[in-house]
């Protein structure tokens, strides 16, 4: 593949550079693959995007560098920030006052996932400085995959809503602790103050950026209609600015966006009609995010011992998340069956896990290399497999507003059309 690309480079002199052409064509192929995947299997479009990214990564596509940096990192962070801002806005804090068990569910599944993955990896003879960060990577579920699956299946209901909230909260913990841990990875024998300090910095800076973002949007929404195209553009521009600033100041851009969404929901309890207006620009950015993640993740070095560790991590993570959700389910208003489907819908692992892994690699190339060796294959596998499991969970929970496409094709033309 590299020969072909270098051949191109000799005669093609595009105005925006060759990588732009390569990425544009890759995204075009991904768009087609996403469409065909949904059209012919009923599975979500993200699966097609991920498969194209994987194929590109395995073929040695050099358009995405690892660890992520520069424009690639910015685009990934921007994509995540947009998704997380919207997910944060789906979390009214008053819900936890009326139903504290949802918070218990969230904390239980996160704590259980962290410690279960950590202990299993240590038991498999991985050093603790690798097992800890990997446990934090495993903590992060993927709101991006889940919300795309929800959009593709046109799902709504208690399982869908709770899975999105729990996934977003796990992301909140993973981003905070992951960013702080990346700061600490090279330090030995820390005092309590030294351990807590990075968490406070990451959270503090992210909260400041989040507050500015939320307040400006709150002010704008006083005189701008939430259904206006201009409101959406304002939102996109502000999130992009926040993304560029947050990490530079020592915070986390996705975390700032997530907290910004939560804060805005508190300040402005009016309905969130405007994310609908984001439309194709947001979809394109999300697609780019999935292709980028799988392209990068596919560049991992595979070996039998690594495969064993990856499979163990995935299995323990699945069980821990399901058990945590079940533990907090008592008195939370959901049935046991719903708890099972919520646990399944939380299995995808994607861009946020990749971002956290990337932070570890940048902070400590030597340890980070080992971390990435396990994290990247796990992310790749769970981006694809997780999307399938989440889709099945939503269909089995009966929360899709349309039946599984391949089963109805031929009977109803409407259902076979792309959503």
């Amino acid at each position, binding site marked *: 593949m590299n020969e072909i690309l270098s051949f191109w480079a000799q005669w093609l002199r595009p105005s925006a550079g060759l990588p732009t052409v390569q990425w544009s064509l890759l995204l075009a192929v991904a768009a087609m693959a996403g469409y065909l995947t949904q059209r012919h299997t009923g599975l979500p479009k993200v699966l097609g995007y991920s498969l194209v990214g994987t194929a590109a990564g395995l073929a040695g596509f050099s358009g995405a560098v690892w660890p992520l940096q520069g424009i690639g990192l910015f685009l990934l962070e921007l994509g995540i920030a947009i998704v997380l801002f919207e997910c944060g*806005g789906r979390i009214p804090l008053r819900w936890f006052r*009326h139903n504290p068990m949802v918070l218990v569910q969230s904390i239980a599944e996160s704590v259980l996932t962290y410690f279960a993955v950590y202990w299993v990896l240590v038991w498999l003879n991985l050093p603790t400085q690798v097992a800890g960060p990997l446990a934090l990577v495993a903590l992060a579920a993927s709101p991006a995959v889940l919300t795309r699956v929800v959009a593709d299946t046109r799902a*709504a*209901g*208690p399982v869908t809503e709770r899975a999105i909230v729990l996934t977003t909260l796990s992301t909140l913990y993973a981003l905070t602790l992951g960013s702080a841990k990346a700061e600490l990875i090279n330090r030995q024998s820390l005092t309590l103050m030294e351990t807590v300090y990075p968490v406070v910095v990451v959270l503090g800076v992210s909260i400041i950026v989040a507050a500015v973002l939320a307040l400006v949007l709150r002010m704008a929404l006083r005189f701008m209609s939430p259904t206006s195209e201009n409101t959406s553009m304002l939102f996109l521009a502000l999130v992009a600015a926040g993304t560029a600033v947050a990490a530079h100041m020592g915070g986390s851009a996705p975390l700032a966006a997530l907290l910004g969404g939560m804060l805005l929901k508190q300040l402005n309890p*009016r*309905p969130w009609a405007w994310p*609908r207006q984001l439309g194709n620009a947001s979809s394109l950015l999300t697609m780019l995010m999935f292709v980028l993640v799988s392209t990068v993740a596919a560049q991992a070095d595979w070996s039998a011992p690594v495969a064993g560790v990856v499979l163990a991590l995935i299995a323990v993570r699945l069980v821990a998340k399901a058990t945590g959700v079940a533990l907090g389910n008592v008195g939370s208003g959901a*049935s046991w069956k719903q708890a099972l489907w919520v646990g399944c819908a939380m299995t995808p692992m994607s861009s946020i896990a990749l971002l956290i892994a990337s932070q570890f690699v940048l902070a400590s190339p030597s340890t980070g290399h080992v971390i990435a060796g396990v994290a990247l294959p796990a992310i790749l596998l769970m981006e694809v497999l997780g999307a399938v499991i989440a889709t099945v969970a939503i269909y089995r929970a009966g929360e899709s507003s349309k039946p599984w496409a391949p089963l109805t094709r031929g009977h109803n033309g409407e259902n076979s059309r792309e959503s």
Partner: protein
Amino acid sequence: MSLEAFNHSEPLTLGVELELQLVNTNDYDLAPYADDMLRLMAKTPLPGSVVPEMTNSMIEISTDICHSASEVLGQLTPIRDALVKSADKLNIAVVGGGTHPFQQWHERRIYDKPRFQELSQLYGYLSKQFTIFGQHVHIGCPDADAALLMLHRMSRYIPHFIALSASSPYVQGQDTAFDSARLNSVFAFPLSGRAPCVLTWTEFEQYFNKMTRTGVVKSMKDFYWDIRPKPEFGTIEIRVFDTPLTIERAAALAGFVQSLGAWFLADQPFIPEEDDYLVYTYNRFQACRFGMDAVYVDPATGDHMPLREHILHTMDKIAGHAALQGASSAMHMLRTEVEAGQNDARWLRERQREEQLLAEVSRQAAQRFRGGR
């Protein structure tokens, strides 16, 4: 199947059913939470019942047998409070109103219950378009013949009921220009509209038997009439009310029905006849379309007058009976609103004019239902 016998009930007793919307708190669209609400509500001992409705974003609550409007309110209040508590736990909201202002009917899912699935098979898309929300008021009748007499007398006041309860101006995100667009959806069903003008139970049985012989009808449930007899309860059931935005208004409307019924039983003011129905559909349309600003054609005299005037005139006429039934405060509440030309449809339009966002109107309606404003 033959028509079941008309059971005994205490005259002028009341039973109220309210179909309610379940919406999410994110964009305030309808949300499929009926099962979850039923599960949570089953844990609280309450009067009446809570049951599923046609699609799984709807729920129906009902009172036990009540003797007055205040008793209706007394029963609806704890049910409403329990609903609100359960909804808070699930992070959803409960809303009144005859239609959800911007839901898309094709996104609805039929509730998984044999009867609803059968109806869905028979009626196709109409069953999903039946995601509309009404209040039904049962009123106890002394006997079967008296029930039919009461039914046809009440028919003259159908426009009054419609205008007073109208709360469905928006459908699929559009202002329909109707105050009660909900009833247009009911009209699509066969066997909707008015009951045949027969005044004895024997004649009604003959009609029912003829209908069952055609195979079109199996039970009384197949009639979607505006008012229908409910023999198993010993009542007639008035079905034209949109679900109001508050339980207080729902109870007041029940008080209005009871006061009318008391007037009919005490004074036997007129004998209904087939000619009453000459203007029935016109009056019904006027009330649906214009609400409080409708024109009412008196079926007896043919006089045209503002419906609002006729409602106030009727209220004056039955004030004594309302007092005897303990419905004076209910009548006072309705009268104040009629004099101001106000109903829930108008409130919804005013909110939309102010907010320019139907989802926000739904959010404010949810606040209103929980007693917030």
